[in-house]
């Protein structure tokens, strides 16, 4: 990984995106897209500010040195300048705050969801309950990953498919449907996070939180617990299969038929 590659990744993240996993995914929901767009906007603004400020510093370092015989100037204050470089950043911030606030209002609006998925965080797995259809199951890290990750397992983890990001019983959701996701926990605080679906909220014992997703593209989306919850915090992944509505209802039908007993 050469320095030039790193610099390229910093300045041209879109090029870097696909192969090098250096940037946030744009994701497949309105919330993930708005988060990504805001992220890139702020990033570019900070790059520009950085170029200006560090550019000035670099110039000064190169030319305002004693070794070149440069004599120090006498100025040491200017109210006018202080006002300018207070007001201009303020204006830039207002420019950032407007899209950010709009995005946030949109992200927090869970109204008129068609389906409600209740997620309960356990030490160390997830329980899912589809409220309308009364389908419930636990979802644990897949056996292959779980065995490979043990200290001294002897397994080369690069041979395990979706190492640490595969489960025994995945969530299935329909595409193009507003889904409300309720979050709570059995024991300690967890957090449910699938980067490509956008949004993240803590799962807190005794309380419910909510987020919403509307998955535009079918596919498999993987995530992890995002709040330290004990020793196996890193080993309770999330898998969401997004499928067409008819396929989703077919899956629900099958779940109802084989009511899987709670297994821990």
């Amino acid at each position: 990984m050469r320095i030039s590659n790193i610099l390229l990744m910093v300045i041209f993240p879109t090029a870097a995106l696909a192969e090098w996993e250096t940037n946030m995914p744009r994701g497949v929901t309105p919330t993930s897209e708005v988060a990504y767009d805001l992220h890139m906007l702020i990033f570019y603004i900070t790059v520009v500010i950085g170029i200006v400020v560090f550019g000035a510093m670099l110039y000064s370092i190169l030319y305002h040195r004693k070794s070149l015989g440069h004599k120090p100037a006498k100025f040491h204050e200017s109210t006018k300048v202080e006002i300018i470089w207070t007001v201009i950043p303020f204006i830039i911030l207002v420019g950032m705050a407007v899209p950010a606030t709009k995005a946030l209002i949109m992200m927090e609006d869970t109204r008129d969801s068609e389906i409600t998925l209740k997620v309960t965080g356990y030490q160390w797995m997830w329980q899912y309950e589809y409220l309308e259809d009364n389908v419930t199951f636990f979802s644990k890290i897949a056996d292959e990953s779980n065995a490979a990750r043990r200290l001294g397992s002897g397994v080369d983890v690069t041979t395990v498919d979706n190492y640490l990001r595969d489960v025994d019983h995945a969530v299935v959701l329909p595409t193009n449907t507003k889904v409300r996701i309720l979050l709570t926990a059995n024991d300690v605080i967890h957090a449910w996070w699938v980067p490509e679906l956008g949004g993240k909220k803590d799962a807190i014992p005794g309380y419910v939180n909510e987020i919403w997703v509307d998955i535009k593209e079918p596919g498999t989306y993987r995530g992890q617990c995002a709040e330290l919850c004990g020793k196996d915090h890193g080993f309770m992944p999330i898998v969401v299969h997004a499928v067409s509505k008819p396929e989703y209802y077919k899956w629900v039908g099958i779940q109802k038929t084989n009511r899987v007993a709670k297994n821990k």
Partner: protein
Amino acid sequence: MSTDIDKLHDDHDHGPSSGIMRWITTTNHKDIGTMYLWFSLIMFFIGGLMALVIRAELFQPGLQLVIPGFFNQMTTMHALVMIFGAVMPAFVGLANWQLPIMIGAPDMALPRLNNWSFWILPFAFTMMLSTLFMESGGPAAGWTLYPPLSLQGGDSFPFTILAIHMLGVSSILGAINVIATILNMRAPGMTLMKMPIFVWTWLITAFLLIASMPVLAGAVTMLLTDKFFGTMFFTASGGGDPVMFQHIFWFFGHPEVYILILPAFGIVSTIIPAFSRKRLFGYDSMVYATASIALLSFIVWAHHMFTVGMPLAGEIFFMFTTMLIAIPTGVKVFNWVATMWRGSMTFETPMLFAIAFIVLFTIGGFSGLMLAMVPADFQYHDTYFVVAHFHYVLVPGAVFAIMAAVYYWLPKWTGKMYNEGLGKLHFWLTTIFVNLTFFPMHFVGLAGMPRRIPDYAVQFADFNAIASVGAFGFGLSQLLFVYILFNTLKKDVTAEDKVWDGAEGLEWTLSSPPPYHSFEKAPKVD
């Protein structure tokens, strides 16, 4: 004014006691400053060792070295040691050495309290670190101690809480001492707006300490009583709320991070003018900006908790206040650049660290601004993006400032000049490795790697490997720093009074090293 100083000064003119009793019983601010600094250096290596355990495990995917429970103990202790054992004591050490001689005072206002404030620390940390050897291990819920997880802690829990209380007492007493000294013992003619900027930043920091550390004490006491005495502050069944802990903790926690950086700002504001041979640009503005940052720091705390499920109005409020705090911070950066601008710069080691601070701290500030944007923060929160952010502001931020200060003032304290070539080498190695360690963390965080995990999915492997290599390089480079320190102390060559030709301030009027009791008579300040 002079009567008060005479009262404080005991009527003796002997030098320090000899042997170990000197250090146990000293009430001299220079001795106590020295002890704080050595303690901080030792803790820096202990915390660093823990970081290397973490980075060694994270070098490759899969678990190779430690079990997950122990890994969590390492991340928890690494933070507690670095924050409370390395950075804060280092700044207090610098305060002890520098504040009296910068304001022309003979010592701190309460010299015996000063001694106690220091000696609490080794005891507190011995207790805290010993929990790692308990059967149930040390604290493993993160330095933020969120319940209910922290309440699942084993035998280490009460000891950790007690240690935190002791550290809090040490900090609070130290802060009272600092404020009393600065407000009451300045040499005649030194008005507040004539004080060296480092003194200003420490004055403000001391107020932050007194305002925030007691709140931490309250929060951890609530944890203790929840676990042992049947209170229900943080349990829903009793009408409590785990999120309330987070609010109380971060009400302390946010001012705490400014406690970790304001003295650094003061150091940089001292060093840049000295090596630019030009007065600090906008002194008044710098003072107001520092004060604004301190005040604003009390109304931004929930930006550490954007994912708890706050009402929309709360999220918007804290987003705005967090963005706002970027303004005085930016003003400070611009002022430093304006100080350099058209100066006559030389680039000795302190200046190199100070310039690197400005660049790299600002990068940390940029990621901080990104984190402030709540919709985006939902993707950053609890990922390595946050880890990258705070390490940039703390390592090439606070730690670089401390190193800059040590190189800058070491010749004054010891009377011996360090080896400039080695100093520069230490700087370059440190800077290269610090970036190698922490820059890739931005990438893996954005790509989806959560924090506080001992093992990760294979797509995060490359950057983690780089970060681990960087961490080991960084750690080894600090051995060079220790070598430089000991090498300097062994030397025969004495340094001048005014070590650096661009340096200003009362300390440079004293000999190098200064007399054991300096400014027994207050100097005149114009």
